[in-house]
């Protein structure tokens, strides 16, 4: 009984805050644009009873999804988002893994402090932190002044309003989400496993590759998902740091909703984005399950 209650509460929570909004978005994506308030049709009219429900459903179609395929803006935006998210995830992994490794190998008494330092940025507003990057990356910014001051460059670099700035912003923002799960996996790693690998003839590097990496695999996967999924729909970072040529689906979505006020198309964009994210995750989990079954 108590267990049932324990399970019910989070389920209801997910139902209310995830499934219901998704159904609403799905419904809007199947509607048509209308000059009305709300700006789409048909509306479900309960007063007309059964006939109203039938009229409502007959008014739904997949026109908007077909529209998405006709304009190359959308699939270019999807591809570009995927590319940016993928590259950022890989970069975050390469930056985050050594940090997590160093933390996990640090003396015990230092670890809480190091962990604190990783979480510390969350104490200030995300927007402020992204804004401060404008100050760092702009032509007259801190970075350019520093580089010119030490004589590495003579002309200021144009970083702000390019994809470079977007990558820097994303890696900076999502780094803790990569570090924490990898750190959790590495901290549990028994050092004698590495000694055993060396004892059996591996070099240090081979031991790292054959033992440390496979054993931190779950942390790596979790970290990559935690970075990749929010990044692909990221809106704030590309709009603040990116340029006019930075094409990301989050920005497209925003423009459809607020500039064009075309809610049905915007909803269709959101639904497709969701599918793009969910399908690979489900496939991945299924293959994981199969691998686990095979091991037994």
């Amino acid at each position, binding site marked *: 009984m108590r267990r049932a209650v324990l399970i019910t509460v989070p389920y209801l929570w997910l139902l209310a805050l995830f499934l219901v909004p998704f159904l609403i978005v799905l419904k809007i994506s199947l509607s048509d644009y209308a000059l009305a308030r709300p700006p789409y049709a048909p509306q479900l009219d309960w007063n007309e009873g059964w006939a109203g429900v039938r009229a409502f459903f007959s008014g739904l179609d997949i026109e908007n999804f077909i529209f998405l395929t006709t304009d190359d803006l959308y699939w270019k935006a999807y591809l570009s988002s995927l590319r940016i998210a993928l590259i950022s995830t890989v970069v975050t992994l390469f930056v985050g893994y050594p940090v997590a490794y160093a933390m996990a190998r640090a003396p015990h008494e230092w670890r809480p402090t190091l962990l604190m330092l990783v979480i510390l940025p969350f104490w200030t507003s995300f927007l402020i932190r992204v804004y401060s990057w404008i100050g760092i990356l702009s032509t007259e910014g801190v970075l350019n002044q520093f580089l010119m001051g030490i004589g590495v460059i003579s002309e200021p670099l144009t970083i702000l309003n390019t994809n470079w700035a977007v990558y820097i912003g994303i890696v900076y923002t999502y780094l803790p989400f990569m570090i924490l799960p990898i750190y959790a996996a590495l901290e549990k790693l028994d050092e004698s496993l590495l000694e055993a*690998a060396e*004892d059996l*003839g591996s070099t240090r590097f081979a031991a790292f590759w054959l033992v440390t990496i496979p054993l931190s695999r779950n942390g790596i996967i979790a970290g990559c998902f935690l970075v990749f999924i929010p990044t692909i729909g990221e809106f704030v970072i590309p709009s603040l740091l990116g340029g006019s040529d930075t094409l990301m689906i989050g920005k497209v979505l925003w423009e459809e909703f607020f500039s064009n006020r075309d809610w049905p198309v915007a909803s269709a964009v959101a639904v497709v984005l969701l599918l793009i994210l969910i399908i690979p995750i489900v496939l991945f989990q299924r293959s994981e399950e199969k691998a686990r079954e095979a091991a*037994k």
Partner: protein
Amino acid sequence: MAEPVFAPWNDPAAKPLIQFKGVTKRFGDFTAIDDLTQDIFECEFFALLGPSGCGKTTLMRMLAGFEEPTEGQILLDGRDIAHVPPNKRAVNMMFQSYALFPHLSVYDNIAFGLRREKKSKDEVHARVQEMLRLTRLERFAARKPHQISGGQRQRVALARSLAKAPKLLLLDEPLGALDRKLREETQFELMDIQEKTGTTFIIVTHDQEEAMTVATRVAVMNEGKIAQVSTPDVIYEAPNSVYVADFIGDVNLIRGTAKARPEAPEQAVETAVEQSPEPIPTPQPTPAAAPTAAQQTAPQPNDIGRVLHDRVLSPIFGKWIDDEQRRLPPPSKAEDSTPAPAPSPPPASVQPAEVKSAPDIPAGGLAIHWADGQPPVIAANGDPAMAGQSVVLSLRPEKVSIAKERPDAANTLRGKVIDIAYLGNISTYHVEIEGGTMIKAQAANTRRIARRDITWEDEVWLSFTATAGVVLMDA
């Protein structure tokens, strides 16, 4: 003739596989290994035994290559390996935690080392199969380490460390995680595998029973030094120090001052030789002057000899200097029954030997005065050179007999049973001797416990022979 005993350490021509030469290891201010020199031979099963922190693990990690000695050399087959990294040594280690790779199957764990050698697939497969057979793990090859039992994991670890056919296998507390029964079985399995493969094994353990069971030689370590290296029986029966005696097994330590006993008079020499493993003690200058003289044509002793005779020896052997006849007449009945007889004024010394037992007590050795009001303890195997020094008699409980009646023995002590530890096959009796000293005695439970005649608070007699203990210098 019996087949030759495996004892390369006694053979000056034998070439050691491992040589520690003045090896010292320091961690900051702490000296883990202190100027250690030791040879280990091929095919040995060498046990490093000691309490935690004695340096045994450090020594093993230096052999594996995880630690480098601060000073000195470690030779493997004559080659200095002190600074060779672990992956370049023909040495493998079985870790205390087993350190099995959790993401790899049993098969892949065993194959791990072979694959690093870039061997062909077939070679790897053949060798892994051989190891699986040796450790009886064929059925579990596809399992992951978390899917097998502790005993099986232990065998996987062993198979993995043996797969590369190392010259030397290091075992770090290999059986620590197993329960007692499995541990005992595994000990024999280990010995069996060691014999089959002919590999040299070095085992680190704090379990002395384990070390004694499996090892050809045991090194008892103390604070970075080897206190004694020898075969298990010598370590147990003839420890060279109080530390070793105390560390190995259960022991009674009786502290006291040693006094020399007279050399065996002619007729008695035989018995002394027979019973004492030590060479017949050579005559000592001062205290033993009298016995020396006595040994020749038994003339009159000097003053010291006289005192020695009167106060120490006559209660044991009876007087013999005054009356020519050494063999005293049989004791009177009265003397036999009363423990403190009138004729011997000094501390009711060793129960005035019913003289019929006198020939059973070898002469020579030491008498240890260990408490006022108690008879000295006779150790015929004591080195007379220790006379006058403070010494410790180390006496194993199983060599102390317990009886309700006063037995006929070289050393008898009277006391009260304070505690009985019933271990099933044997019982250990904790007996308080008058004066408060506790002595442990062991007796096999040959009768059912209900019929045991000694119980708590009983007055009992403890006895042991003149060669039961080992006399050691007090540290």
